[in-house]
């Protein structure tokens, strides 16, 4: 804009050149050229239509005023068409010439030259705002940006353009872009990485089929004789899409089955749950998540039937009264081997736990998650469950360490799983009890304790007569003091010595390690556990979570990749010293603190 103004300012008007000519020149239009063209047209018209008919003359009068020449429109049209034809001839001639063909062959280009030639030689179409004659009816009209092209070249006036639009078949609307465009797809990949379900290459045929099936589940009448694992997959997929309702539930109720898994029972009513026990009399294992309507009447029905459950997994069944739980345990507890109760806030409490030793003698697995009712008194009763192998507790009430010490001293030797979540006051006495009593532990989880010390962890893992642990989760066992976040004079939480002792004890077999938020493990300890020369190898380690361990650097992450040949996923959220690590093929690094977010094999970290 400004340049144009400058140009114009610089252009002086001198002599015979008029202001209009100057303006046209500034727009690259030569007034002289216009005059010459008009002269040529006039001459051509005189030659071709020596004596032009009066009707033509008439038309001129009716025609637009802008035309200063006396040339008739029809003449213009004919001359234009003939010129176009002539041009085409010239183009064809040039294209056919030997030199052109040779040049084209040498250049090895196919269409670029042709296009160039075409554009160079083609008569330039008038710009919007100028006048032109319609290529169809010959009338003069003002060219606009919306003027249509005639198939044989030239432009059409607006009525003719509309006519042509009518004749032409309606243009197909551009196909709707799929919801997962390039951006959506990338996002989906990242989301899959975070879910831990990412894999290179195509989805398995089974997955594709099950996805199709889930999309069209309303067409299915019967799943037929599919094997149990496949049915389970379909059930999961349906629940993921929230498609499990009373109708689709019927697909999973095979009279001969002994297992029913409902991953999302939110849409089922109490009658539907009763129907499960009616149609599947030999039911042994029942899993129901979001089973809100699994309530008293369902329990009443279950108690009245012959069904002998071995495994009961209930999630969110808050409408079962405490008496019903007691009745169920008393009548049906004999066969029960596994009882898992999630998110039942107020009705599964101490009295139910107190009933367990007498009514469920063969209980092997007990899990109570997100429970607001159980207190230390109930936990104490677990000491009498002598067959118990798997114990997972996640309560909202605080239970004193002494209670756990009591339980561990009684049933510790058999325990394979010991998981205590969010018990902030758990102290070293529990660790010592584990050290003294547990001999077959495989999975250990103690989280959020801010009382346990490094010394305690070191004592636990040093000279422990337990075989290697496979699963260790000690997340957020650390000192919390907002006033002095860096100092940790008492070595609270899992620090250097405890970490080293843990890896020395279980490194050979450990598969899953979570030390999320154990901030006081030093870089030195990491380097010692994961030496950069790869001399220590943790062959089974698949998942490692070291998020918010502040000391972790690029160098340590690189060493970890060297020391853990079978590592699948490494989480480093909040490790601000990790900047750009090369990730070996097949590994997933999640949580690098840059825009990339997560990094996956092969992709160069340098490309940002």
């Amino acid at each position, binding site marked *: 804009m400004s340049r144009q103004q400058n140009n114009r300012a610089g252009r002086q008007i001198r002599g015979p050149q008029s202001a209009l000519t100057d303006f046209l020149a500034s727009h690259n239009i030569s007034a002289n050229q216009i005059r010459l063209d008009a002269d040529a047209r006039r001459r051509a018209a005189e030659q071709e239509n020596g004596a032009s008919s009066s009707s033509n003359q008439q038309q001129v009068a009716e025609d637009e005023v802008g035309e200063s020449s006396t040339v008739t429109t029809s003449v213009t049209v004919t001359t234009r068409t003939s010129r176009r034809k002539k041009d085409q001839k010239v183009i064809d001639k040039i294209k056919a010439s030997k030199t052109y063909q040779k040049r084209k062959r040498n250049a090895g280009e196919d269409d670029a030259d042709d296009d160039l030639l075409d554009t160079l030689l083609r008569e330039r179409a008038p710009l919007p705002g100028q006048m032109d004659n319609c290529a169809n009816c010959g009338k003069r009209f003002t060219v606009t940006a919306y003027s249509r092209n005639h198939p044989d070249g030239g432009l059409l006036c607006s009525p003719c353009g509309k006519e042509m639009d009518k004749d032409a078949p309606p243009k197909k609307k551009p196909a709707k872009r799929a919801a997962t465009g390039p951006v959506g797809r990338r996002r989906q990949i990242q989301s899959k990485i975070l879910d831990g379900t990412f894999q290179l*290459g195509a989805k398995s045929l089974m997955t594709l089929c099950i996805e199709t099936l889930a999309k069209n589940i309303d067409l299915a009448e019967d799943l*037929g004789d599919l094997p149990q694992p496949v049915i389970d997959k379909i059930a999961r997929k349906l629940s993921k899409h929230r498609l499990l309702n009373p109708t689709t539930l019927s697909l999973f109720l095979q009279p001969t089955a002994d297992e029913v898994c409902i991953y999302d029972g939110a849409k089922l009513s109490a009658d539907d749950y009763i129907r499960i026990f009616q149609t599947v009399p030999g039911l042994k294992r029942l899993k129901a998540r979001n089973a809100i309507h699994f309530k008293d009447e369902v329990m009443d029905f279950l108690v009245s039937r012959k069904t002998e459950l071995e495994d009961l997994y209930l999630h969110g069944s808050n409408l079962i009264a405490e008496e019903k739980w007691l009745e169920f345990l008393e009548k049906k507890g004999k066969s029960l081997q596994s009882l898992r109760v999630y998110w039942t806030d107020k009705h599964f409490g101490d009295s139910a736990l107190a009933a367990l030793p007498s009514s469920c003698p063969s209980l092997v697995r007990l899990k109570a998650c997100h429970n607001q009712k159980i207190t230390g008194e109930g936990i104490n009763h677990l000491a009498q469950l002598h067959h118990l192998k798997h114990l997972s507790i996640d309560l909202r009430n605080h239970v004193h360490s002494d209670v756990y010490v009591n339980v561990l001293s009684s049933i510790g030797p058999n325990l394979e799983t010991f998981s205590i979540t969010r018990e902030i006051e758990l102290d070293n006495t529990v660790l010592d009890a584990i050290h003294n009593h547990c001999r077959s532990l495989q999975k250990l989880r103690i989280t959020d304790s801010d009382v346990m010390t490094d010394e305690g962890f070191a004592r636990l893992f040093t000279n422990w007569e337990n075989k290697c642990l496979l699963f260790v989760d000690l997340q957020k066992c650390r000192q919390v003091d907002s006033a002095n976040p860096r100092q940790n004079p008492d070595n609270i939480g899992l620090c250097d010595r405890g970490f080293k002792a843990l890896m020395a004890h279980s490194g050979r077999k450990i598969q899953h390690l979570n030390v999320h938020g154990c901030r006081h493990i030093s870089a030195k300890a990491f380097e010692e556990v994961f030496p950069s020369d790869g001399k220590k190898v943790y062959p089974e380690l698949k998942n490692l979570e070291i998020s918010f361990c502040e000391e972790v650097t690029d160098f340590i992450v690189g060493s970890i990749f060297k020391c853990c040949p079978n590592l699948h996923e490494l989480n480093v959220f909040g490790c601000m010293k990790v900047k750009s690590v090369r990730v070996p093929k097949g590994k997933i690094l999640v949580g690098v603190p840059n825009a990339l977010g997560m990094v996956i094999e092969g992709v160069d970290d340098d490309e940002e």
Partner: protein
Amino acid sequence: MDATNGNGGASKYITLVSKDGFEFVVLREATLCSDYIRGMLRNNMTEARTGRCELQDINGVILEKVVEYFHYWYKYRDREDVPDMEIPVENCLELVVAADYLGMDSKPH
């Protein structure tokens, strides 16, 4: 048409035969996503020598789709963003059975 070339299963292709006699010649490497066929092609089995696998439980229509999947799987084996293959709804359940039979399930890490 048979995919054997006479010198003991060294051919790049193998022939899959359906229950009703349809034959499909497939790239050997592409069939490795099926545990079942990979097992058949292991060293000393007859199928490994002849390069001809008879699948007595799968009919031609289904096997055709499975073969299509083999090539789809082979084409995208190392790619990150893979478009989903169309699965015909009417054959979906039969394909699930075939996929289960042929061991074409996703492998846990």
